[in-house]
């Protein structure tokens, strides 16, 4: 076996569990009293409860529990940073290692597909209608919760497919279209309408405000940040994370010759860019960031994954300039401490140094019938499971506002 993992673009990084393997893992669960794992799931997915259902062979019941608590249960299973959420709290850590909650959640959700009845049902129509801008996790959660209460919900999104970052940011090896589709089907089965290829401008927003009883802004953070005054940032071959990932997703990994790739940034987004570049056939991939191994924001799971794929990681270096004439040819980096510096050959440079709310919505504030949530309400992007939590809370607030 080679030391570097070969994983074609789009092929799944992890296999699912079958019943026997799921039972083995569920049997490791201590079935804790007042399960600590459940307290540490932001969205209230209640892992302690659904693992118990698996343990007692109530597999479809487990799927139903997850779906009722977290409308994006299948997605979260795949991409939650469990090691700092539910699994971090797991009592089993005191014996050996935590229960693999994500895998069990994915197993349960795979059982949902065989279910011969619809798990969630829309509430009795209450006569109210709500529009959600953006079809990312937070809007999907707002929409599902409101539909369960009988609200007629329309989601509008500028993209060709629904899902927001799920569809165009996170790589398909970590999160397949099938899983996203399964979750979105649960939303549309509740009668939620999704209008695609519809960019909602400031003017459109005013019209929506007039037409709907409430409007939810879940536009996420779709603009890329850039390091100010970075020399060479406008050379050909320089890109930012979101456009790069989206391009790869739409072209299913066939985005031409990337050559030597250098990625700037130490978060999960940078890691997604690294694995994507690697899977799209880059000659070499190097990730560099200003933080140290200890302080880098990316989750350990993501870092281990890209290292497995043969990505080189250089912590504690900051980019000084991008070098090239018309097209990039190298990047110059300097150590955060001491005087070391290095110049890396590069044909592609990707800046993954953060995202922000687009200019149209950057100053928007919740007001009256206007609600804002998910990443759009944050300075720094959070996680999908927190977007679900935010969506659930805002749905409650909207319901209260609509007096239903």
């Amino acid at each position, binding site marked *: 076996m080679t030391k570097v993992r070969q994983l074609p673009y789009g092929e799944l990084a992890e296999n699912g569990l*079958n019943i*026997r393997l799921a039972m083995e893992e569920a049997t490791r669960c201590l079935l804790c009293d007042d399960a600590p794992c459940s307290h540490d799931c932001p969205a209230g997915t209640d892992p302690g409860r659904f693992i118990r259902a698996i343990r007692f062979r109530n597999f479809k019941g487990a799927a139903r529990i997850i779906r009722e608590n977290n409308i994006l249960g299948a997605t979260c299973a795949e991409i939650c940073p469990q090691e700092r959420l539910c699994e971090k709290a797991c009592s089993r850590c005191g014996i050996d290692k935590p229960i693999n909650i994500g895998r069990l959640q994915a197993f349960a959700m795979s059982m949902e597909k065989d279910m011969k009845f619809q798990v969630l049902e829309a509430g009795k129509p209450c006569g109210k209608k709500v529009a959600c801008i953006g079809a990312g996790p937070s809007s999907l959660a707002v929409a599902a919760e409101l539909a369960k209460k009988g609200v007629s919900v329309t989601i509008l999104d500028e993209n060709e497919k629904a899902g927001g970052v799920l569809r165009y940011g996170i790589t398909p090896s970590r999160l397949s279209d099938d899983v996203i589709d399964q979750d979105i089907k649960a939303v549309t089965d509740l009668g939620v309408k999704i209008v695609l290829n519809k960019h909602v401008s400031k003017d459109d927003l005013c019209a929506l405000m007039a037409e709907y009883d409430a409007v939810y802004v879940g536009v996420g953070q779709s603009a890329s940040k850039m390091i100010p005054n970075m020399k060479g940032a406008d050379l050909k071959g320089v890109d930012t994370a979101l456009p790069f990932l989206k391009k790869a997703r739409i072209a299913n990994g066939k985005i031409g010759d990337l050559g030597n790739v250098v990625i700037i940034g130490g978060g999960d987004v940078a890691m997604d860019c690294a694995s994507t570049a690697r899977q799209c056939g880059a000659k070499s991939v190097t990730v560099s960031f200003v933080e140290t191994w200890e302080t880098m924001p990316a989750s350990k799971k993501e870092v281990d994954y890209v290292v497995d794929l043969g990505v080189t990681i250089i912590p504690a270096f900051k980019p000084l300039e991008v070098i090239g004439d018309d097209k990039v040819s190298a990047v110059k980096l300097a150590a955060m401490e001491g005087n070391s510096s290095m110049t890396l050959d590069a044909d592609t440079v990707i800046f993954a140094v953060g995202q922000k709310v687009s200019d149209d919505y950057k100053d928007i504030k919740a007001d009256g019938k206007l609600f804002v949530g998910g990443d759009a309400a944050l300075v720094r992007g959070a996680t999908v499971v927190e977007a679900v939590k935010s969506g659930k809370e805002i749905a409650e607030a909207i319901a209260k506002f609509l007096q239903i």
Partner: protein
Amino acid sequence: MSKKVDLSIDFLGVHCENPFFLSSSPVCHNYEMIAKCFDLGWGGVFYKTVGINGMNECSPRFDNVRKEDIGWVGFKNMEQISEHCWQENAEIIKRLKHDYPTKVMGVSIMGANEEEWALLAREMTKAGADMLELNFSCPQMTSHAMGSDVGQTPELVEKYTRVVKENTNVPVIAKMTPNISHMEVPSKAAVKGGADAISSINTIKSICNLDLENVTGMPVVNGKSSISGYSGAAVKPIALRFLAQLKMDKDLANVPVSGIGGIETWQDAVEFLLLGAENLQVTTSVMQYGYRVVEDMKDGLEIFMLEHGFTSLRDFIGKALPNIIPCEDLDRDFQIIPEIHDDLCVRCGRCAISCYDGGHQAIEIEKGTRKPLITDKCVGCHLCLNVCPVLGAITPGFIKFKPGRTPHDVVIKHTYDR
């Protein structure tokens, strides 16, 4: 919210919101416990067996059987009946019946003679019992005039049942011991004495483990131990067998049965229902995991019913009985030769070891590749399928008719999920 189906059933004319009851044991011996179990969704209880006086119990009194890394495969106890005297129990039952009018209070009782049985029947009925269960089956009583010694003697079963019937107006259920080869015999005696239903099973006499340190059985009570009752998952197969035999006996076929023994999951519950049980009782899995086990029993049963289009438990109670037939009536014309799926097989060779040492030397391991190959010696016993560690790597393959037998349609099992 999602669909719900009706899990209620009328058992002996008593409306039960679901078939899940706690069986008589320490899981239901005081007010607080039973209140908690009702709040968590149990349909009813059979209150811990009430005798005239409280018991004098030994310590410790439990042990369990492990198999490799799984504990509690089976559970042994050396406990007798209630620690309280009947007056105290009557008080508790009265309060529970008052506070939980929609829940079903079955009360288990046990006397040592006709006077005691009569008194307990009268007093528990007065306290508010919805049903009386007669404990003819505890295998570890310190008095031989009580428990399974009585249950093995049909004359006593009939006599005591009759006494109880004469002293109550609520349905009477006789709880039988499995420590007997034909439970039908004492069951018929109970019915003759007036019993309305049978409960089966109580615990099985056992010695689970020996303690090598003290050279005695487990648990060790001051250096000694006793033969006593075994329960839990390991006894389910035995409980199902007694249940089927009761339901297939033509004299007992119409006598309702409350099924007990090793119920942990909704699937276990469905199995008891398919063999004709109309009520289900649980102890050991509650002792191990808590009252909460009922949540997945109810939830799983509900999903099973939704998916099969059943609207009432009666739609499938007893459905499997016609398919349990005597060994001599099985179709023996064919062999189902298994198929080994190369893509799933991990080349461990466990199938070949078992087939050689416990079967018919019909699996050859290919040199170099370690691939198992099934040869003509295969008789279709499916030992390999049972031992294979990879789910789905060995499945039923093709049907081979024995020489001289006429080929015909054969029903086979396709999906294995354990």
